[in-house]
């Protein structure tokens, strides 16, 4: 199955944008594009220099589809290692579709997901672990997950696992020797040293496994539940946070009408804000499910941000309304009791409307209360600092390894399971040949991560995780 046909796909994200890039790769890429492109300079694609750009039009017969820029990559000096043409056209979905269909009608084949990278791999442009990292890189949408993907591409924790695997392998060899030469007087594998190695491996594996939670969060954004009544200023707060960074990444409609999720990058870490209704309000509604629903949402989060509409607890004379304040305090207490482990950020919004004395009163009850004004954009930096402090990004900054790939995570779990069996076997004095089965199995799972064993299922997986055009 040697690939000889020429494939085409949209290389930029689907949908409308300012521009879109259509990539054509394969032995016939240049030839197939030549009759469709009319360069302003009159130079045909076949005569265009490699790694150069030309302005012109794409035409279907007489009809001009779009004015485009065409890049040409000759020989093996392209992403795929094959002759490649990239057409930068205007970003309308209609134009993209027209051009791609034209190319297909002239003999291109629509590419499969990951096929460009597959070809790059088959043509020796990258190895498997790089291809896997490319998939992660493409889907990384904040600087932290980008950093993780880069770390993996450079080797990351696999080099540490490689060392451990080698140590384990050395011991395994000694034990094999011991088995095959049980009649001769050869040096045996030192059981104490082996125990120590097993403990060390357990520690490393456990740490990497734990890091997956962190890694996952960094990759997908840290879910933050914002609890507050309508009009408390949730949207204004989100906008304030957004305006600071101007880095909105996605906007996903929530499951209910009143819920939206916003992902905001703060200090290079993605935060996913989940809007939830306030507790009091849901308590008042007839459906008793309301509060449950709020709690379900909070459960998905890792950080709780409670927004208080502070002017509401004071009357027009800036005097405290004790029963209002009491209800707010009860709400807060209820939340804290329900989620004692979660970091809890208490924000007193609309603080610009409070007097210093008011603030003193509230602070007396909650020392860690942050006074902000979403509207006036005061205290925003303090919120950001506070949010970042909850993130165990220490690991990242210390250049510690974090596992983000679920395939790696699963292999680590399996490896640990086998290592635990080895330890159990050692403690029970299991005979070496049976111990060896578990060791071999652990080595296998190690190898799945370090690339020292070939796994056919894995191959399919890696390329299947790409989207079309990559």
């Amino acid at each position: 199955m040697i690939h000889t046909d020429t494939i085409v796909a949209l290389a930029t994200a689907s949908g409308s944008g300012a521009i879109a890039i259509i990539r054509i790769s394969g032995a016939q890429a240049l030839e197939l594009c030549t009759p469709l492109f009319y360069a302003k300079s009159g130079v045909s694609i076949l005569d265009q220099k490699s790694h150069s750009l030309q302005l012109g039009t794409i035409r279907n017969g007489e009809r001009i589809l779009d004015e485009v820029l065409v890049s040409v990559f000759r020989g093996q000096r392209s992403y795929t290692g094959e002759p490649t043409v990239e057409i930068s056209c205007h970003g309308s979905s209609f134009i993209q579709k027209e051009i791609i269909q034209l190319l297909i009608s002239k003999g291109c084949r629509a590419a499969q997901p990951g096929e460009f990278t597959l070809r790059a791999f088959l043509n020796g442009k990258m190895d498997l672990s790089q291809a896997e990292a490319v998939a992660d890189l493409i889907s990384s949408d904040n600087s932290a997950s980008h950093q993780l993907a880069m770390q993996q591409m450079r080797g990351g924790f696999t080099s540490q696992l490689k060392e451990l695997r080698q140590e384990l392998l050395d011991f395994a060899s000694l034990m094999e020797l011991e088995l095959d030469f049980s009649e001769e007087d050869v040096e045996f594998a030192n059981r104490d040293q082996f125990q120590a190695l097993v403990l060390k491996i357990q520690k490393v594996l456990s740490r990497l496994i734990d890091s997956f939670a962190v890694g996952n969060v960094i990759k997908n954004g840290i879910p933050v539940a914002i609890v507050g009544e309508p009009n408390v200023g949730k949207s204004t707060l989100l906008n304030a946070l957004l305006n600071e960074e101007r880095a909105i990444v996605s906007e996903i409609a929530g499951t209910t009408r009143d819920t939206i999720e916003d992902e905001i990058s703060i200090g290079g870490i993605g935060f996913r804000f989940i809007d939830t209704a306030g507790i009091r309000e849901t308590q008042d509604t007839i459906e008793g499910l309301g509060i449950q629903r709020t709690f379900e949402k909070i459960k998905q989060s890792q950080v709780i941000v409670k927004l208080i509409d502070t002017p509401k607890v004071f009357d027009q004379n800036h005097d405290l309304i004790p029963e209002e304040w009491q209800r707010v305090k009860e709400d807060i207490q209820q939340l804290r009791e329900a989620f004692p482990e979660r970091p809890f950020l208490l924000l007193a919004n609309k603080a610009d409307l409070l007097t210093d004395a008011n603030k003193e009163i509230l602070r007396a009850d909650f020392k860690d209360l942050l006074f902000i004004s979403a509207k006036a954009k005061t205290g925003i930096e303090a919120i950001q600092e506070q949010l970042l402090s909850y993130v165990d990004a220490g690991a990242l900054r210390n250049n510690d390894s974090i596992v983000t790939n679920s395939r790696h995570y699963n292999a680590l779990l399996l490896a640990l399971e086998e290592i635990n069996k080895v330890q159990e076997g050692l403690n029970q004095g299991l005979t070496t040949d049976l111990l060896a089965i578990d060791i071999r199995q652990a080595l296998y799972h190690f190898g799945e991560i370090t690339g020292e064993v070939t796994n056919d299922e894995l191959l399919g997986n890696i390329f299947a995780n790409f989207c079309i055009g990559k």
Partner: protein
Amino acid sequence: MFKDTYDVIVVGAGHAGSEAAAAAANMGSSTLLVTMNLQNIAQMSCNPAMGGIAKGQILREIDALGGYSGLVSDTSAIQFKMLNKSKGPAMWSPRVQSDRMLFSQHWRERLEQTENLDFYQEMVSGLIVLNNQVTGVKTSLGLEIKAKTVILTNGTFLNGLIHIGDKNFGGGRAGERASFGITKELEDMGFEAGRMKTGTPPRVDGRSLDFTKMEEQTGDQQPWKFSYSNETKSLKEQRSCWMSYTSQDVHNILKEGFDRSPMFNGSIKSTGPRYCPSIEDKIHRFADKDRHQMFVEPEGWNTVEYYVNGFSTSLPEDIQFKALQQCAGFENVKFFRPGYAIEYDYFPPTQLKHTLETKLVEGLYFAGQINGTTGYEEAASQGLMAGINAALKVKEKEEFTLSRSEAYIGVLIDDLITKGTEEPYRMFTSRAEYRTLLRQDNADFRLTAKSFDIGLASSERMKLMEDKKEKSDAFVDFFKNQSVTTDEINPILEEKNSSKVDQQGKLFKIFARPNITMQDMRKLKSVENFVKEHDLDNEVLEQVEVQVKYAGYIEKEKLNADKLNRLENVKIPEHFDYSLLKSMSFEAREKLTKIKPRTVSQASRVSGVNPSDVSVLLVHMGR
């Protein structure tokens, strides 16, 4: 003088040649066994023993396939030992000490009783090859004998050169001539040849030894046997071996001869077996060890000759003698003959297919030491497989190969043809990925039906195997279903320091406990009654014990083996052009082009091919 055209000619009658001839003839091929000396059929050139770790398993496999080595080992045994009984069942390895002369005699008798088999004593000096197809052999007297296939099993005879100290002379074995001509001719045809070395210790006169100064090594109380058939019986009487040690004094004397040692003065350049080192090699490599053990093994029932296992040497005979005299019990030692080293030609086995047929010349097969292996069992199993495949080829039937998860023989041949070997190749259990499946107790389950299907294993063997299987399955089911009361089982558990049970439960669970044995189980009336009632023999009892006690591990290994087999099923077309795989390393492309692996799995075992190369291959094969 000869049949017009033989189906199969086997050159050499050692362990490989004898099995090859027997297998081909038993499969109905007209077969001729040509050897330089018909008095020395299946000669034990080195130690008088068969089996051992991994080798015992191979011997059981040969027997399960219908070869003769197991039968002959049984009838010529003087001592039986099941090694590693304290370890898991994958390690249990049967071994016998043999009566060397009886071994050879019984082999000859069996071959003489084999139909379709002719004998001829002569040196084969060349092959007749037409258009890359073998058509017969030429002898040193100028005879030409025609054949459809030829199996070369030349052992250490091809340009054999014997070394004792600084003296050397041509020979294939002590007291026997070397064989000339074949290597040159094969090289001219395009074969690559190499040189290997092996050695053997001195043989001594038992009447001159003081056994009171050595430790006695007796055989098993309840000796077993190799053959699954009822044809042979286990030993009633056994002879002991003895253990002695070298000392610092011994080492010092040996060192005096190093400058006259062919190993150290450069006259032997070829590689010897690292795993079976000579005594001079041992004291050189393990300089900090002040003693090495030696096993003193009788060569038969009715001989005073002893084999000094562990003292293999090619030092000058006077040094050998002086050094051995310093060992406990050897003070008055008399030599029958000194130890020696021998160099011989071999052909890197990567030139072979899985059937042991050469890639270059059709109908030509290699088996045994000519392929760079060491050991009787390794040789015999190759002979058997070559004999089978030559016979199948003549009948134009499909080839017969065994996979790595099926048999040690499969591991052996796959290793040889895929990786080749730089030193004499010896089988180890660690060479098998799934040794827990390749046990000595289940070789018949693994292989007998396969051999029966190609017409080698007899219907009696097949029936025996099926009977054993049926009985074993029934007995395992019995343990799964039979309950035992606390009153019955707790006294037995108590005796074994195993924690007592507080309620009635199935026997299977209790039997699966680490230190509970079949013997313990048989203390239960229900179990003993079942054994008596169904007339269960040792084979069945052992089989069931393994199946119950190691069920978890066996299951796990089976799953893993299936994983391996998945890659085994990704076939590579025979004339695949690796130069198309640009992303594969140059070394991998080159090696794969030479080895021509049949599956992606085999490709992954070729040295110089790394996992990323295999990934490329897999993706290309459509995975």
